[in-house]
């Protein structure tokens, strides 16, 4: 990095802080920015600042949004009595992309991870309880990831809500659509047999 001028060095070191970006990739990106038109670079810089300044968490579901309440929570045509609980906003985006769900969401912003010291206090569970206590919720779909952390979070939510008169469901686990059984791992196959459905 010695050969670069000071402002380029600074740009490289800032870009290298991004996830998955090492020093070489950062230098390549910095060189691209250097060659790009001033207009393009301004647009990039402005969009980054705008994201940071304008995006906040939805007051209801905690999904990042520009408004006080996100477009999903605003949509009165969606089923207001069903909440799908997800770990992160990208899980919400994936479910929305599928188009298979027309209820509301709740983003926990994490999952129970004892080895990393992430406990119930670090998750947005109190907001979920508040929503349940204040609204007429019929069903909670727990859509945390099907790994140890996600399963533990699902069990925790189940324990917390067991006294409430709400239907609690968990997303299904099993072989993916279009999959080939001989290439599926043992655990997924055993789960798919455990949770088989009647025809």
């Amino acid at each position, binding site marked *: 990095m010695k050969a670069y001028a000071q402002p380029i060095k600074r740009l490289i070191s800032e870009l290298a802080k991004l*996830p*998955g970006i*090492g020093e070489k990739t950062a230098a390549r990106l910095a060189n691209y920015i250097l060659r790009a038109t001033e207009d393009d670079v301004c647009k990039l810089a402005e969009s980054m600042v705008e994201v940071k300044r304008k995006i906040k968490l939805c007051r209801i579901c905690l999904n990042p949004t520009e408004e006080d309440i996100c477009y999903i929570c605003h949509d009165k045509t969606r089923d207001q009595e069903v909440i799908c609980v997800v770990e992160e906003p990208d899980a919400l985006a994936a479910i929305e992309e599928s188009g298979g769900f027309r209820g509301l969401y709740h983003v926990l912003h994490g999952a*129970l*991870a*004892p*080895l*990393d*010291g*992430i*406990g*119930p*206090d670090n998750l947005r569970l109190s907001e979920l309880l508040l929503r349940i206590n204040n609204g007429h919720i019929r069903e909670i779909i727990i859509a945390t990831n099907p*790994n*140890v952390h996600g*399963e*533990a979070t699902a*069990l*925790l939510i189940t*324990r*917390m809500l067991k006294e409430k008169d709400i239907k609690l469901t968990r997303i299904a686990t099993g072989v993916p659509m279009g999959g080939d059984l001989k*290439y*599926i*791992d*043992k*655990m*997924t196959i055993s789960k798919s047999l455990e949770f088989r459905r009647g025809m």
Partner: protein
Amino acid sequence: MTGRETHKTKAFVLHCLNYGEADLIVTFYSSDFGKLKGIAKGAKNSKKRFANVFEPFSLTSIIFTRKSRDMLAFIDSCEIIDHYDAIRHDLEKTLIASYFIDLVDHFSPEGKKNEKIFELLNNFLTLLGQEKTSDAAVRFFEMRLLRLAGFEPTLDHCITCKTPVANGTAYYFYAQEGGIKCAGCAKPERYDQSISAGTVRTLLLGKDMDIDKIKLINLSNSLAAESRNILIGFITHVLSREVKSLKVLEQVRKLCL
């Protein structure tokens, strides 16, 4: 130039760390090499080669290569032997199993083989999967691990006057000195909690008790609290930090267990 050697071993997954976009650095506790760290290339996106294999406390069979003992291993393959389904279906058991592997991680230096620690983890995870959770099992695991790691506290006699533990006597535990003192030798402050000879004897008993008999032990509330205070205080002192997974376990217990 030395070539890369290939090894195969049974290992428990202790911890995973994201590395770059798709790789994981995985910490294992293996039967043949003790604690070892390896990189699993493309593991985060893997649907076949590394699908579901790096889950905490899973027992796996790994094949890895490395140039020398002090270098990060390259994980070639990893297959599940047991993912302890019964533990994963129960919140408290999941948290206790996480605490077990967290302790093993903290008390094991990298590259130092200790088959007894591997066996201890294997036995206690099996016990946890088969039986109801109990404070006794957690305390006895701590006692046994401390002994195997070379940090066993002195509980069978007073560390000052060397008098063996006797019934009816009150004792005080000194984490800095690594053992108990009888009421005569200890100079307790007002806030120091005494511990009963019964607690001390139970912990000593649990240290060597047959694993199948642990399920029969049920600690009373006072005995559970005393033994917890002794061992957690001592572990925190030895490690010079709190064990994160224990903190989470206690947070969850307070909330809903």
